[in-house]
């Protein structure tokens, strides 16, 4: 069984030390490669951008207090 609809293209990414550390940390926490982390991030970012462009807002809600905080997208 095969899933996956498109061939993949390669790019070089230049990151600062702090950005690379964040990427390394996420890769370790999530137990996926750095490429997989970035693909996840891109998908989420694309969804957020589309929804914000429609006039929606992004909030975080505290699980216990139910306090909401808006995430500012610049």
């Amino acid at each position, binding site marked *: *069984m095969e*899933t996956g*609809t*498109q061939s993949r293209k390669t790019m070089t990414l230049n990151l600062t030390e702090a950005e690379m550390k964040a990427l390394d940390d996420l890769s370790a926490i999530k137990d*996926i490669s750095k490429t997989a982390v970035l693909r996840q991030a891109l*998908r989420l970012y694309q*969804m957020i951008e*589309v929804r914000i462009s429609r006039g929606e807002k992004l909030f975080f809600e505290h699980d216990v207090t139910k306090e909401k905080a808006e995430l500012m997208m610049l």
Partner: protein
Amino acid sequence: MSTVSPVHLLDRKSGILVEAHLIDGLSREDVEKAEADWKPFLDEHVKRMEEAGVPKSKLPQHRHWNWREKYDATEEYLLYRMFGLECQSQMQGLMLALTAGKNSQIVAQRGKPLVYIHFLAAAPWNLASIVSEPRFSLVGSVLVAAAIHLSMEEEFQGRIGLHSLPQADNWYRKTCGMTDLGPDQTVENLRYFEMTPEQASEFLR
């Protein structure tokens, strides 16, 4: 752009495996055709069941799902993938999966990403709860296997998760061997199920 893979379904009448196609990346036309085939069949059978006095709890709980609306709501997002299972020129099953933003809730796997199955349904003529002689078996199993393969491709090691409608609880628990994490108050009290990498390997065996 879509990928088509050969798979097999069990023709229940003949008892033999027949060739089918798993389509990853359905077109709007695919979904519209499926909806046009499924809805009249489902509506007619639900009407008959209601007229026969079948209690509401026994009616198919996903009867209100509209796959064209789901396609329209998700087609522009990279994180959604819609799969179809086609056999004998008709869509036998559909699945909408989410590939980012969901993490495992099982303690040993907590925080690790998984593929979340938003919706999964077999065509109404394949449901024993609606028809006395369903046409094909294995529709749900092939789609769950597709979700596991997708999870592996995404480096999630086969982890998948979903909220089940009550009528499907036992199927996910017993046939799929998923872990039942109980009712989720944030999603209409539906039971939340997860498949670990080990359970995924077992399922694919």
